[in-house]
């Protein structure tokens, strides 16, 4: 049993409720004990100035530190932003300043010891691929999955810490019986950060990645970040219109994909909330369930 301070992030509690529900179910099944942090703020998502987000994140890290367990997120952007803040907060002088100016008056202090982890890393490092395979009552045989990391689970190195983490999605899909479909843009930006700044660029990126996955024969793409999901799923029809092509590429959250291998039905994983129909994947999973029984 691994225990973590659970930081779901704003989007899993907002416009990707299926990510929250599916993550809770998956963690419960795999024995990841979630102590959800309530009294914490948004990481800033790389939007807010780090002058503001560093103190907010120091506060979150301090709360996890008091619990004596790693902080786990289900969003790559949250992971990256809070991990980078954590890197800066390893400098004792900077940490002291943040503690003194922002945390002390509420009786908090961050000592710099909290480890930040994404669910993906917990699955591989704490649960273990063998356990994952053993728990997969419905291995996703024949399901072709295209991993899409996006930015924050690939870079920058000081936040990722261990280079092996850059190929964990492939390891997980393999462990649960799926087949990986590699695309050249798997570590590139999905487009989301540009959506309100330069929409044309954002949609061009979305079209590029999703159409590459389709051309290579993937049944679905899997993402560890709800912002990638909002972009690749939520904006896919607009990307199709802009780039004048049909794409129709289902996008799954990592938790949903793992959950289906663990025996949850697609609707228990709430895939019906997606914009792009996941029918083809659902049918494949259902036929697997029939064969299994």
């Amino acid at each position: 049993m691994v225990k973590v301070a659970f930081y779901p992030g704003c989007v899993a509690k907002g416009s990707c409720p299926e990510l929250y529900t599916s993550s809770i179910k998956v963690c419960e099944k795999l024995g990841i004990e979630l102590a959800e942090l309530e009294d914490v703020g948004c990481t800033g998502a790389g939007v807010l100035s780090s002058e503001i987000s560093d103190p907010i994140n120091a506060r979150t890290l301090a709360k996890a530190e008091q619990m004596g367990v790693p902080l786990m997120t289900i969003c790559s952007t949250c992971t990256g932003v809070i991990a980078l803040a954590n890197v800066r907060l390893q400098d004792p002088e900077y940490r002291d300043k943040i503690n003194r100016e922002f945390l002390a008056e509420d009786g908090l202090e961050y000592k710099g010891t909290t480890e930040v982890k994404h669910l993906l890393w917990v699955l591989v490092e704490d649960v273990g691929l063998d356990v994952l395979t053993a728990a997969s009552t419905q291995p996703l045989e024949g399901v072709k999955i295209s991993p899409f990391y996006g930015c924050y689970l690939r870079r920058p190195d000081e936040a990722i810490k261990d280079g092996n983490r850059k190929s964990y999605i492939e390891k997980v899909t393999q462990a649960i019986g799926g087949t990986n479909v590699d695309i050249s843009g798997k570590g590139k930006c999905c487009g989301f950060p540009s959506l309100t700044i330069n929409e044309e660029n954002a949609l061009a990126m979305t079209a590029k990645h999703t159409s590459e996955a389709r051309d290579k024969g993937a049944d679905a793409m899997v993402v560890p970040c709800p912002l990638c999901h909002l972009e690749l799923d939520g904006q896919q029809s607009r990307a199709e219109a802009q780039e004048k092509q049909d794409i129709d590429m289902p996008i799954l959250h990592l938790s949903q994909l793992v959950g289906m291998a663990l025996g949850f039905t697609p609707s228990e994983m709430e895939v019906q909330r997606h914009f792009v129909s996941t029918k083809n994947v659902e049918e494949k999973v259902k036929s697997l369930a029939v064969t299994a029984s």
Partner: protein
Amino acid sequence: MQVTMKFVRTKNEDPDQRDSFVVDVDPETSVFEAMSKVREEQDGSLAFRGTCNTGFCGDCTCQANGKRVVPCLVKVKDSVKEDAIEIKLIRNVAPVKDVLYDVDQFMWKKYKYFRPWLETNGTAPAVKDEDLEPVRLAMRCTVCGLCDEGCTVIDVDKEFLGPMALTKGLYRTTKDPRDQDTKQRFIEAGEKKGLWDCVHCWEASEHCPWGINPTHLIMDLRDDSIALGVKSGKGNPMAARHYNAFADSVKKSGWLNERMLASKTYGLPPYGLSLSGMMSQMPIALKAIRKGKASLRPHKSRPGARQIAKIFAKVEQSHKNKKA
């Protein structure tokens, strides 16, 4: 050792051109030297740039056996595969001939956009040595272009000003205590295709051969711009609206109110009546409601919202003091 140097020769119309040359080189020499040896001894028409062979001029950037490199910084023995090295143009550039590309379009025009000189009104104060540290970092940029070559945004938009120009143009000047036009520089940088078009994917930091970490510098520039109250240029108001809406939401409730963020950014009711905003966003909003992705319930504050509001208040006060 004998190495076959293969060149992917773009826009070369000579029907008799050769593209494969065997040269005898020391494995310790640089790939750039091997390229030069071909040009000097076998085919003087071969076109590529580069002079210093020490990484300093930043001109010879190309792909060697599929890796994007400054070839004078790479030894033949580290690049060669099956006794051959294939040289070709980098991505994201307009070819001129062979491995030559249009540097003006790729980088110089963008660099010039940032007025890469100091505006001092002739009254520059004396500067402390340590204050020049960030300036020196940006000065180490050799304009090799590898950051722009790997840039996720330039990949889809050739006009994005890009990490090189933001580093050597904007960071170099705005971090210099002698420069007296910093705020105006940020206003200009905040126009479309500029500072706020970066998607902070951290690619640029990964590609720089000198460890200048351009993405880190871009994020630092944004912090500096925000501290001066500049969240976009005049012709790019949506970037500022997005920042302000995001910040307001976290300030008020501790976390993101996505509905408010979208409405304020796109100018939708109750915050505005933008027709184009409604046309583009309404179908998405309705679908999100139908699919159960957008909740119609009121946005609740986080338990720690008051503490988070205090953080905002303190930082905003320090920005005010700085400006004063």
